[in-house]
């Protein structure tokens, strides 16, 4: 289920290999910059609702906050909403239909200093009570913060090749895909609410990028739970514009140590289309003596194919193997539409299969239909 603000690495198919082209954050996600908004309005969204006489420049000029063309370059605002209709357990007689307000957020970016080298970015989101807690007592629900910031940082871009960022951000690791329930995000603890305070360094050259992240956990969390550690991510742009990369992450809190590695590839498959792969492993070991090591291995393969401007076919395959050796495979075709700028519809059919040595269970089929709009 995509979450607002996360990047679409698939747009490498449009020829972009660096997240910084469209995002203020060099590792992707968070608010789009002016170029990113213009690109989403033109190359990505359909122009079916526009007269042929309306130029691409004109369409791009309407991509700003509330359709305005900013008169200054220092301050930008954005807001967006994403809702999901979820139909679970199709064909089992135990179908469930839910509407989930996944995210409603507002963000602001302030650029200042000489040559606007400093960036201050902050977002505030409305977060609904998780489905798992909805049936629990009012006290449990009260513990949930309905409003939270998922990102606030200050960045200094010394040059095109080097920048440093400090604050609350997503950890630097792996491919930042939009689907927060993907195993590559949920298993690794890089879910939609797993941001961490810390400092990040970004260094880029023509064909490669390096990200280094030291983090101390989310300061809103109990201190004992905060994962403190560091991560490293390296990307190399191949001659045909594909990107190959690797990530490492090591962290610990008072209860466990975690160590993660991943390898990824993001490549083009024709104009506007792309394929991406990530395989990785996460090891968790309890701090207490004699604790057992838990190991999860995951894989992600996704094809993202442009059928027409604003129309994409998505084919996703996910794999997860846990410590017990049980495996889970999830596969699903999807269709994503951007009928006009600021509007996204997406529908996915997901088939999840458990490959367990304990018992055979029926496959689960879910339907996910989303609407996403931003201003």
């Amino acid at each position, binding site marked *: 289920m995509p979450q607002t603000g996360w990047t679409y690495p698939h747009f490498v198919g449009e020829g972009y290999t660096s997240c910084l082209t469209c995002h203020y954050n060099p590792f992707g996600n968070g608010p789009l910059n002016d170029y990113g908004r213009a690109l989403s309005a033109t190359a990505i969204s359909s122009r079916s609702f526009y007269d042929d006489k309306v130029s691409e420049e004109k369409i791009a000029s309407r991509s700003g906050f509330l359709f305005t063309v900013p008169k200054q370059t220092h301050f930008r605002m954005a807001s967006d909403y994403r809702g999901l209709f979820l139909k679970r357990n199709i064909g089992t007689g135990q179908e469930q239909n839910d509407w989930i307000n996944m995210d409603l957020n507002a963000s602001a970016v302030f650029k200042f200093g000489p040559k606007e080298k400093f960036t201050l970015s902050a977002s505030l989101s409305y977060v609904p009570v998780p489905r798992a807690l909805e049936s629990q007592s009012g006290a449990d629900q009260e513990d949930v913060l309905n409003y939270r910031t998922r990102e606030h940082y200050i960045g200094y871009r010394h040059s095109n090749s080097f920048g440093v960022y400090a604050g609350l951000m997503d950890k630097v690791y792996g491919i930042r895909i939009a689907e927060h329930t993907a195993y590559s995000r949920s298993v690794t603890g890089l879910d939609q609410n797993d941001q961490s305070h810390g400092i990040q360094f970004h260094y880029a050259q023509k064909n490669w990028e390096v990200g280094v992240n030291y983090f101390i956990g989310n300061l809103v969390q109990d201190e004992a739970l905060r994962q403190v550690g560091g991560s490293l991510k390296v990307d190399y742009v191949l001659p045909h514009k594909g990107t190959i990369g690797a990530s490492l992450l090591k962290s610990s809190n008072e209860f466990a140590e975690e160590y993660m590695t991943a390898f990824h590839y993001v490549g083009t498959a024709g104009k506007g289309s792309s*394929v991406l792969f990530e395989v990785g492993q996460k090891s968790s070991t309890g701090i207490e003596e004699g604790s057992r090591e838990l190991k999860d291995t995951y894989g992600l393969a996704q*094809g993202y194919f442009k059928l027409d401007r604003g129309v994409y076919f998505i*084919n996703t*395959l996910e794999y997860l193997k846990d410590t017990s050796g049980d495996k889970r495979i999830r596969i699903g*075709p999807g269709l994503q539409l951007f009928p006009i700028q600021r509007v996204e519809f997406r529908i996915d059919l997901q088939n999840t299969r458990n490959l367990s*040595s304990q018992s*055979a269970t029926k496959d689960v089929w879910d339907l996910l239909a989303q609407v996403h709009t931003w201003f």
Partner: protein
Amino acid sequence: MVLVNFVIKSVILTFVVCFSLSSFGSNLSSQSMLRLFSENYEGVATSYELNKAKAKKSGIGQLIAAKAYEELEEYNQALKIYEEMLGRYKAYDRAVKRSIHKPKLAPDLKEENLLAYTYYLMARVYTKMYLTSSEVNTESKRKEIKKRIKLYSLLSERANGPIVAIDELRFKVSQRDQVLEMEKFKTYYYAYLGFMTWQDQIKLVGSGNNIDILNTSEGSCAGFGVKTYNVDRLYGFDFCYMVGSTTSSSLMSNITYKQSGIATSGFFATFETGWQIFSDNLWIGPSIPVFYRQGDWSTPDGLEVRETSYIRTGLMLSTTWELGDFSFTSRFGKIFDNQSSHLQLLASYQF
């Protein structure tokens, strides 16, 4: 005086027609002339046939008739007339042909001359034939026509013909060759290793009861395949031997039946077709699998296990991503009568 007028008009008309027919010159009068001649090609051709003897005496008449035949796509008739026109310049024609391999022997012709244009026009007619599928229906004929285009283009060059126009003909031929090359079906063989997973059922039968047992399986497979493809379309067949492992459970809550690690084996053969819709290294299309599997389920006392083997077909969507000699394929779909989807992932190496 009448004779002088006729000669002057003939010379003027000859150049006008030559320039018009060979795409040279753009003044209004030449275009008007061409339109005049273009109004009724069949009439021109018929008139030429009826007055052939007279017409052959006039280079202009022959040119107009040849052009009419070209427009009517009667290329052999047009070529016949151009051959006859070459007869007007026998000595020069022989000299130019001798100079093909020895450029120094090329006769000293003026920059613009009818012989060179005639060669060019012949090359043009052969090019039109080359670009017309019905005229090039065999490989030998294609080669023969291409040879003639090459010959007359070279002759026209030797005789100071229109270089730019000749190069345009060569470009068209080369473009056609590229299209033909892309349309040509090529075949390759490949070996692959794969993973597959599926869900099906067996039945426990005894004392008049049928108990459905759900099987979740995964397997590895190794096999060979053949693909034939051109720029648009792919057809393929592959076959693999599969060994797998199955976990089985009863779907009825009051019946306990569980087995895991059940040895399963079989084959998976696939007929597929595909299109390059998105890019030149990505094939997508439907495939029809034929799946045979058998397993070694243990039989509880007093019960009989049925459907331990079957052969079934289905329908799947196949996506293949090529990366040099390697390719990666995912197939997802349904084996008819199975309980859920079938997934196959392959890594192939082509020979």
